[in-house]
C-alpha cells in the first residue's frame, strides 16, 4: 500500500537553524525506508517529529490516513528503537519488554504470552530475568527492538540502531534486523549515516542534506544514478568531471570537452545540445586498467595516465592515476590468483578504459561536495590543478 506514512511539507527550525526544511515524502506499507545523510542533516529531527518528541513548525504527518502531527508520543501507533537503546536500567529484560503492554493495560496472560514470543523472536529466552547492565551491546539492541515491536506499532522507527556496535556485530545485526522485518512485516523507518547499512537493508532510501531531501530511490538507483553531486559523493566514491557538450552523436551519446582532460564520450540521458555545460560522475569500479593499449571499441573511452598511488586491499586494489590535470580514483577487482600475475604498481604508465554508458550526468553540482570524497590527496590540494 502506497502513501502509508506521509510527510507533507514538514519543517522544524531551531532558532536560525533549519533542521528540517519543508520535507515531503511518502512511505509504503511494509517497506524498510532509510533516511540517510551526514550528521546534522535533519534525519533524526524528522524521525523525532514522527515519534512525537518534536512538534514540526509547519506541515503535516499522516499515518494510515490519519493526521498524527499533534498527537503526544504515547498516543501514536509508532514505536522507536533509540540510538543508545534507552533500556530502563532499573528493570529486568522481561520488564523492559513488558513496559508498553503494561501501559496499554493488557491482561497478565496476554502480556506473559507476548513477552515469551518476543523473547523467542530475539532468541533471548535465557536472559529474561537479567538486568540491563548484565547483557552485551548486541543483546541490548535486540531487547530494544523487542520492546518496541511488542506494542504492534504500525511503524517502527530506528534511530541509528547499530551505531554503538562494532563493525562485525553491526553486519550480523543487520541480517537479523532484516529477518525480524520479514517475520513481522511492518513498516520500518531507519535513520543512519552509514551508507553501507542503508544500502544493505533498505527497500528505498531518502538521501538527506541540510534539512532537505536530495533524492529518493531504491539503493541501486541512488548509487548508479545519483541526481546531485552530494548523493554521488556521500554514497560511495566517485570522480567528478565538468565539461561542455561539443557534439551530439547518433544514438544516445554525446562528446564532451573537459578542460585539462582528453575529450570523452558520455551517455546523453538528458538530451543535451552542443554548448550545454555538464557535470559527470564516474564510479571508481567502472574503470578498467591496462598495461598495454587495449583494442578500441566504438563506445569505450580510453585515456593514458601514470599511477600515483596504490592501496592493496585484498579483494581489490585502489589506484590513483594522473591523467593530465585530473587525478582519478579507481578500483580493480582481483578475480584471479594475484601471486601468479605481475600487478600494476606505482609509477607505471597505464591505459584506463570505461564505457560511455557507465558515467552519469548530474542535475546539480556543488564543488564543496567533493570534500565528502575519501580520496587521499598526496599533494594536499584538490585533484584538479
Amino acid at each position, binding site marked *: 500500500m502506497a502513501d502509508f506514512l506521509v510527510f507533507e511539507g514538514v519543517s522544524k527550525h531551531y532558532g536560525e537553524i533549519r533542521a528540517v526544511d519543508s520535507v515531503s515524502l511518502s512511505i509504503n506499507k511494509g517497506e524498510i525506508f532509510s533516511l540517510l545523510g551526514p550528521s546534522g542533516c535533519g534525519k533524526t529531527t524528522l524521525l523525532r517529529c514522527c*515519534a512525537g518528541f518534536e512538534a514540526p513548525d509547519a506541515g503535516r504527518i499522516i499515518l494510515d490516513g490519519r493526521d498524527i502531527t499533534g498527537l503526544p508520543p*504515547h498516543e501514536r501507533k509508532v514505536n522507536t528503537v533509540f*540510538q543508545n537503546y534507552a533500556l530502563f536500567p532499573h528493570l529486568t529484560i522481561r520488564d523492559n519488554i513488558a513496559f508498553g503492554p503494561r501501559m496499554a493495560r493488557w491482561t497478565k496472560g496476554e502480556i506473559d504470552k507476548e513477552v515469551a514470543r518476543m523473547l523467542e523472536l530475539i532468541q533471548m529466552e535465557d536472559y529474561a530475568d537479567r538486568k540491563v547492565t548484565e547483557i552485551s551491546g548486541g543483546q541490548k539492541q535486540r531487547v530494544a527492538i523487542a520492546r518496541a515491536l511488542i506494542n504492534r506499532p504500525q511503524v517502527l522507527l530506528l534511530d541509528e540502531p547499530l551505531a554503538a556496535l562494532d563493525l562485525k556485530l553491526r553486519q550480523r545485526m543487520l541480517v537479523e534486523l532484516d529477518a525480524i522485518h520479514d517475520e513481522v512485516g511492518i513498516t520500518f523507518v531507519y535513520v543512519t549515516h552509514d551508507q553501507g547499512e542503508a544500502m544493505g537493508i533498505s527497500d528505498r532510501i531518502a538521501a538527506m542534506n541540510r534539512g532537505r531531501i536530495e533524492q529518493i530511490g531504491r539503493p541501486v538507483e541512488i548509487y548508479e544514478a545519483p541526481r546531485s553531486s552530494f548523493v554521488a559523493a556521500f554514497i560511495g566514491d566517485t570522480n567528478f568531471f565538468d565539461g561542455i557538450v561539443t557534439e551530439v552523436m547518433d544514438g544516445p551519446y554525446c562528446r564532451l570537452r573537459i578542460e585539462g582532460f582528453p575529450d570523452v564520450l558520455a551517455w546523453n540521458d538528458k538530451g543535451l545540445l552542443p554548448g550545454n555545460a555538464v557535470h559527470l560522475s564516474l564510479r571508481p569500479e567502472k574503470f578498467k586498467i591496462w598495461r598495454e593499449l587495449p583494442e578500441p571499441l566504438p563506445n569505450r573511452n580510453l585515456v593514458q595516465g601514470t599511477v600515483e598511488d596504490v592501496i592493496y586491499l585484498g579483494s581489490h586494489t585502489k589506484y590513483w592515476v594522473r591523467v593530465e590535470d585530473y587525478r582519478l580514483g579507481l578500483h580493480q577487482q582481483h578475480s584471479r590468483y594475484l601471486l601468479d600475475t605481475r600487478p600494476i604498481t606505482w609509477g607505471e604508465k597505464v591505459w584506463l578504459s570505461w564505457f560511455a554508458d557507465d558515467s552519469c550526468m548530474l542535475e546539480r553540482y556543488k564543488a564543496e561536495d567533493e570534500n565528502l570524497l575519501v580520496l587521499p590527496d598526496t599533494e594536499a590540494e584538490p585533484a584538479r590543478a
Partner: protein
Amino acid sequence: MKRSRVPFYTTLAVLVFFYLPLIILSVNSFNDSRYGGPWNGFTVRWYVRLFQDRQIWHALQNTLVIAVGATVVSMVVGTMAAFALNRYRSRLQMTHYGMIYAPLIVPDILMGMSLLLFFVALNVKLGLFTIFLAHVTFCVSYVAMVVLSRLQDFDFSLMEAAQDLGASHWTAFRRVMLPLIMPGIAAGGLLAFTLSLDDFVVTFFVAGPGSTTLPIHIYSMMKHGAPAVINALSVILLLVTFVLVSASRTIREKLS
C-alpha cells in the same frame, strides 16, 4: 615506573593523626578516673551513668524529632529545587542556583547569627520550632545539590522511551525517572538527617530554654564537668557512625 613513596607515608601519617585521638578517647572511656587523667583501672560505670542520665535521653529525643522533621521537609523542597535547576535555563534559575549554593559556603556562625536576629526581630519564641526552621534552611541546599548531580547523570532518552511505549508524561516520571533518581534523593535525605543530628553552631544560636539537643547537651557537659560521661557517649556515637557508614557503603555496593 618507580613511584614516589611520599604519598603513601603521608597517608599513613594522616590516618594515625585521624585515629589517635579517637583511640585515646575510647580507652579513656573505660578509665576509672573522673577527669580522664592517669589510668585508674577498668570500669564501665560511665556507661551505666550515661544510660541513667534522663537529660541525655530527652536531648536525644529532641534531636531526633528535629532531624526527622527537617529531613522530610528538606527532601521534598530540595528535590523540587533540583528538578527546577535541572529542567529550566532562565534568569530565575540562575538566581535560584545562587540562593541554593550560598548556604553551603557561608560559615555556620553567620547563619546562626542572622537567623537569631531574624527571629528576635519578628518576636518568634526560640525553641524546637526555630531549630527546625534553621535546619531545613541548610538541609535544603545539600539535598538539592545531591539530587541535582544525580539528575545531571540521568539519561532523558529514557523518558522519551517510556512515552514512546505508551506512558503519559506523569506515568513516565513515576515509573522511570523517580525509581532511577530515588537513590539520589535517599542519599540527600541521609545527608540532611546526619547534618541535622550533628549541627551545633546554628542550633546553639536559635535554641531557646527547654530545647536542648544532643550536641548542645554535649557542649554544656564539656564546658561544665562530667567529661568522663562524654567519653562514653562519644564511643557510642563513634560506633553508631561506623556501623551506619559501613552499612550504607555495603548496601550501595550490593545495589550497583
